[in-house]
């Protein structure tokens, strides 16, 4: 789950990390007010969940509260990369002496959170790590033991930072690591972490991402402290009608699991496939053999006839779909005969001939003998486990392209 910059600032502030006297505004009047309170030059920043704000004109400087209001007015109406802003952040324009980077990410190999620090802040940390490796400090923290300040101190010191800067940066990085763990973040970054002219350190920008699996147990942070509504999920893209319909069918029936995706797919062969790894394998196999999938899908668990039927119907009703291929890796939990009933019913309910419409049915496993009886009765071409997933996909492609099967 992604956070807007103004939310990330709040998270960082709650963890005891110094932030600016920023204000989140949803109107030009509010922006004027905040600028007045700040009493100096300000930066107005669009609050959108996409990059390229600067380039698109979503970041502007203002010397007076009037200017701040004017910029806010403009930016609140400015669409950036297809996103409309939630509001604007009004920030005091900082007198920065030096910019640093502080971040925490997951290291999947070490299976621990990794603290990162650099005295070359404000730019892409991956670039710095490549071109100036001795300016990037790294250190893991335990998952079980509390984070102790010295662990952060070591990471900061590794970049050569010393003196009062070391002593100010240390607790900030340590608190960032603690909030990363406590709030189930997958990414927690402060870039830049600014050292101001007066020697104080302040987070000038913050970027947070929380693991979706943990959203359910972070109610205090999300609902109380950040006031984010439960249905505000900030997905990276808008689900299509197909995707939403399939999700609705899935949600309405607890028997089995279905999922459908069609972003980036626009072919004529609908896929009713599973499960997880099987779906990936089959989608590859169809494409590699010249097929044009209309969608990706996953069917798994122990679905009802209705659920299997629901998915197949949604796929069949997509624009341009001529036939569907029903294929899975060997199943033990999913019943072959139940899926067979479901996909055949989908055809019948849409007034289509199952034998013509289902290019191939390849699901080996539980209750397959019963499934084969049903498929034979309706003239659906099917194959058993002796035919590989690759070959089954190939047959589906050949069928839809009109070649003799």
């Amino acid at each position, binding site marked *: 789950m992604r956070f807007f910059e103004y939310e990330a600032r709040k998270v960082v502030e709650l963890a005891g990390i110094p932030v600016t006297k920023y204000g989140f505004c949803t109107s030009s009047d509010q922006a004027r007010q905040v600028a007045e309170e700040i009493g100096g030059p300000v930066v107005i920043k669009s609050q959108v969940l996409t990059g390229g704000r600067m380039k698109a004109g979503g970041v502007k400087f203002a010397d007076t509260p009037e200017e701040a209001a004017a910029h806010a007015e403009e930016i609140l109406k400015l669409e950036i990369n297809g996103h409309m802003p939630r509001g604007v952040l009004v920030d005091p324009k900082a007198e920065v002496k030096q910019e640093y980077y502080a971040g925490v990410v*997951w290291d*999947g*190999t070490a*299976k*621990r*959170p990794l603290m990162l620090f650099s005295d070359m802040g404000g730019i892409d940390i*991956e670039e710095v790590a490549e071109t100036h490796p001795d300016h990037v400090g790294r250190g893991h923290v*335990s*998952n*079980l033991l509390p984070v102790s300040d010295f662990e952060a101190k070591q990471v900061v010191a590794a970049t050569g930072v010393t003196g009062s800067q070391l002593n100010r940066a240390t607790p900030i990085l340590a608190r960032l690591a603690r909030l990363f*763990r406590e709030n*189930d973040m*997958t990414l927690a970054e402060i870039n830049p972490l600014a050292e101001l002219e007066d020697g104080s350190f302040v987070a000038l920008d913050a970027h947070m991402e929380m*693991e979706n*699996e*943990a959203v*359910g*147990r972070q109610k205090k942070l999300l609902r109380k402290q950040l006031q984010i509504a439960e249905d505000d999920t900030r997905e*990276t*893209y808008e689900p299509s009608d197909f995707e939403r319909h399939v999700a609705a069918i899935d949600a309405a029936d607890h028997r089995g699991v279905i999922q459908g*995706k069609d*972003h*980036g797919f626009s072919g004529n062969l609908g896929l009713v496939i*599973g*499960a*997880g*790894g*099987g*779906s*990936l*394998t089959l*989608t*590859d*196999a169809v*494409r*590699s053999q010249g097929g044009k999938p209309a969608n*990706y899908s*996953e069917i*798994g668990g122990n679905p009802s006839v209705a659920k299997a039927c629901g998915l197949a119907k949604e796929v069949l009703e997509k624009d341009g779909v001529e036939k569907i291929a029903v294929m*899975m*890796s*060997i*199943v*033990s*939990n999913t019943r072959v005969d139940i899926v067979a009933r479901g996909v055949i019913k989908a055809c019948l309910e849409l007034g289509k001939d199952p034998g013509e419409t289902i290019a191939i049915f390849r699901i*080996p*496993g*539980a209750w397959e003998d019963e499934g084969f009886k049903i498929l034979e009765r309706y003239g659906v071409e099917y194959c058993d*486990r*002796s035919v*590989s*997933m*690759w*070959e089954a996909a190939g047959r589906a492609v050949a069928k839809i392209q009109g070649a003799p099967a």
Partner: protein
Amino acid sequence: MSILLSKDTTFIVQGITGREAVNLTRECLDYGSKIVGGVTPGRKGREVHGVPVFDTVAQAVEHHGGPIDGSVVTVPPAFTKDAVLEAIENGIELIVVVTERIPRGDVAQMVELANMRGARIIGPNCLGLIVPEVCKMGGIGGPAKDAAKAYAPGPVGVMSRSGGMTTEISSSLTQAGLGVSTAVSIGGDAIIGSTYAELMPYFEADEQTQAIVIYTEPGGRMEAQLAEWVKDNDSRLPIVAFMAGKFMDDEEMKGMSFGHAGTIVEGEEDTATEKIARLEAAGIRVVERIDEIPDAVKEKLGAAV
């Protein structure tokens, strides 16, 4: 001989009274696995398919009269960490975590404690592991009859990020007359208890295993880790890899999530193309099509002779 499991392996099922657990308990018992107890807090005194249910792991251990080798954990995600920690702290050294959607902070904590105590976690979000005709730990392969059909004993160790594909690949090896020494469904999450590289030493030490097949997907650095391990350890085991999800390299697909949680692609490092290159550089044969696996294995085995 196979890895991690033997004819004498004893294990418990934590969360045994749940729907999925009741099923897999039946399946494992039918397969000949020695399930010596189940744990569901509050349900002590009950029985599931003849297996006694306890409130705590300690009670199960006491009832058994000695250390219990393993546990299959099917407890819901909010409680999984607690269950796994309980198993570890009661001397259980092999823990299969079936549950999915566990926050990775919890998983990382389980794994760290397991490392401290010399225990091994398989999963989470996995179907377990199986040594054909010896022991089945988890839902892998389904009912005993079906598992027997797909898994014949043989020289190939199988490791897969997808539970279903573990059986699909193993079945194809069985059909090709090769067979499996041990098949492990390692799980689909971003952080798991045992990666390919971490399991390789077991296979390396197992006389029965003569080759390895891995199923993998984009996301994460496990393949890079495996490639490094193979190089650093001068492994005797030829490896054949199959990677699914190559279509995710397409521009339109970037940033979307397919399949398992660990498959969310982050950065150039993790694309299918890069991974394949890395594996091949380490001498690992990457096949294009899933049905090429048995022949590729036969080739490697023939070459080794």
